[in-house]
């Protein structure tokens, strides 16, 4: 029965802590592929994960993990791997020890656990440091060992709560590729983040939470497309902002320019993609030197502002 049920189903789930609402009437189903859960701090991401892991009981609605209520039964956890947002580990254990110990908690023999631990440590790229105490690991290594522990029993569903938080760019790239690989292998992966760009690099399937409510659910590009059709700003740092403004103002997607600061040009567009597509050619043609190009509105806050504002 449970193997045919979707990995995650939330039906009208609400959870509140006294007067504070954690999650408000959320319904969704997730099964297969990588799903990004986006939302600022306090949006309800961690509450949703805690409900999925049976650590909290919903005040209303029902939570099903492979068709089973995780509050009542721990059976579905055999198929779930969870990477928490929290930092602490068993610092005195070696990487191999930590992962194999966690494997044994799934009922594996000592030998099976060590084999599987070696395998997943190789998968996350920690083979070289597997005999080192995790207390001596870097931030990125700590995140990867947490992912390894969540993968050791070959779960069907992997939940990662802010796995890229605090990691350096190299570690981010490494962890993102691990997550993408898991998705490619047909696992159901749920990744939370409050940074749009991170999720964008991992998946197209997103869930957006805000103030405990489900704000959007679906394909990121479709949502971004909606966003693109609304006024956007592009901030260009250049030696000759006025010269570049002259070259751009006549082009179709640009409908206004501003000079917010010395050496900066801000162009206003209603089609961000189109503006970005013409920008390189215009710069080359004008012969103006450009130091940087930024999209101040291309972040989660802008997206939320748009979604909350209703367009």
């Amino acid at each position: 029965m449970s193997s045919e049920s979707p990995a995650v189903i939330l039906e009208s789930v609400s959870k509140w802590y006294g007067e504070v609402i954690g999650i408000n009437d959320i319904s969704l189903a997730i099964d297969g592929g990588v799903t990004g859960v986006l939302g600022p701090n306090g949006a309800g991401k961690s509450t949703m994960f805690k409900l999925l892991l049976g650590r909290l009981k919903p005040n209303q609605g029902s939570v099903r993990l492979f068709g089973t209520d995780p509050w009542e039964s721990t059976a579905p956890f055999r198929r779930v791997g969870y990477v928490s947002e929290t930092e602490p580990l068993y610092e005195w254990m070696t990487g191999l020890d930590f992962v194999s110990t966690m494997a044994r908690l799934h009922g594996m023999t000592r030998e099976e656990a060590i084999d599987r631990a070696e395998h997943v440590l190789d998968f996350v790229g920690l083979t070289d440091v597997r005999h080192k105490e995790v207390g001596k690991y870097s931030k990125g290594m700590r995140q990867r060992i947490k992912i390894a522990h969540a993968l050791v029993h070959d779960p069907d569903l992997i939940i990662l709560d802010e796995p890229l938080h605090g990691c350096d760019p190299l570690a981010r790239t490494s962890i993102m590729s691990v997550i993408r690989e898991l998705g490619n292998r047909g696992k159901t992966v749920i990744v939370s983040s409050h940074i749009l760009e991170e999720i964008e690099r991992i998946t197209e399937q997103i869930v957006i939470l805000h103030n405990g409510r489900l704000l959007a659910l679906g394909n990121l590009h479709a949502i971004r497309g909606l966003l693109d059709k609304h006024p956007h700003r592009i901030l260009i740092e250049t030696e000759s902002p006025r010269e570049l403004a002259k070259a751009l103002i006549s082009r179709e997607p640009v409908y206004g320019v501003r000079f917010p600061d010395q050496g900066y040009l801000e162009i206003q567009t209603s089609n961000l993609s189109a503006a970005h597509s013409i920008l390189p050619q215009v710069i080359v043609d004008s012969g103006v030197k450009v130091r940087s190009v930024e999209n101040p509105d291309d972040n989660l806050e802008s997206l939320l502002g748009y979604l909350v504002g209703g367009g």
Partner: protein
Amino acid sequence: MDSQGRGLSESVWTSLDRKAGAVIELTVRQLRNKISTWVVMALGALLMTLLLVFYIDAIRDGFESIDNDGDSFDEDNDGYPMGQERKYGTSDWDGESFPGSGNFIFEGQIDWNAPDRSISGNKTWEGSAILEATWIDYDYSGGRWSNIIDWDDGNVEQCQDGDPFDDWWPDYASACMQEDGTYVVSGKLKASGNLFVPEGQYLSWGFFTQEFFVEPDPPEMYIDEDGIDWDGSGGSQGIDDDGDCLRVGWPAQAEAEMWWEDPHNPDSNRNGVSCDVVWIINPNTGEVVSINGDDLVDEDPVDADYAGESSHRAFVIASGKVAFVLLLGLFLPLFLALGLVRDETERGTLHYLLSKPIHRGEFISYRVLGYLAVVSTYVISLSLLMALITSLIGPGDELIRFGDFPVWVGIATATILVLAAYGSLFNTIGLVMPKYGVYLCIIIGVWEFAMGFTSIISPNSPVTFLSISHWGLQIIDATVLATWPDTLQYSQMSSAFGLETGLEWIWRPPVHTLGTGNPYLSIATSVTFLSFVSLILISMGSSIFQRKEIM
């Protein structure tokens, strides 16, 4: 078969065992990596070492014999210890009466109402009379306490005016001279002449045998000259072992000095049995009320044997009750069990354990089992070490007192059961009150400590039944009785002879024997009670944890 193609027995039961083993092993390793675990265990070991130092010191000093019945004292300062004086039938209180001194042989008397009131002769006299002396032995001079008249070399005072024995009476052991040259005497004297005994007075007379020299025995000879034969019951016990009372082979047979005296009564305790000791026991408490021996029956215990064994037992029992059950029993769970789950929550590592397919109720049981594995190993090792050292050093002829080991097994069992009960309780408190649970545990600890000491002194007190420590201590009391059945006798002898080995204070017979007095029944009752309490507390903890939301 399950979805992964494994047999059902493989996938359910075996993996359950593995998961249990993994949680237990993880718990053991976590406790092993906690500094507080090592600190509290090191303190426990230090406590045991200190106790052993005191014990070894006491044992090395040996058990000096004490004169329990005063036989070695020389009360009258005549150079002869009391035991030797009793042996020769001389007085312990009269310096003139000592072994080899002349024995008084009684010849006759004038009674209070005898018709003839005068007597003449050269005798030793005792009583009250008017003496018309031809000779007085001034060297036979004493005082009030010996009742021998103090002649002061013949310089006695003049008598008062008036009629003696009518207007006035002479003091004891005194003499005075009347105007007509006669003496008014009262006491013992040696004199020749005529004695008139007024009506209502009496006089007896006789003579002393030839004196001979007896070498005074050293006082040590009269310390612990006999052992106790007591079988633990009341009534006639301990027949004279060394013949003191029967007087077999004595050098001189003492006789009565005066007609009313009996210097040797073989049945002075008047129980119809000659030369025995009567033990009077309170039928309600079973404790010795008094010990009444016939004359010259040495009923005191041999201290080297008695005090050594009694002190050894008192040490073993005190270590088990106070150091193991009360101190280790309370401090180990306070440091090791209170945070079994609470610390994981505080550190933020609980999710590693709860995101696994392990039922929360089982999880609590496995955590407590892990804690028990650590503390049990510690307690067993410590008790084994203590057993080895004390059984090697302890009194007795054997090299190792193997007979002590069951007591140490009882101590270890009691401690582990108490640790299980406290551990389950403290862990549950840690779950319910993560922040302030430690204060509640301390309050419970104080209560248990108080009840423990009350239970040691008065195990029958019903209020102590409400504590965990009481039942642990009962296991030790019962194991002691089963292993050393004569401990009751040692305890009662300790009280009876005032030998302060501590045994009578630290040990009492077990109370939960359902009226049978059978120690094994008490062990079974206490073990069942403590196991039941632990299971109930673990179930409570499991039930609470199962319904608890983990933030």
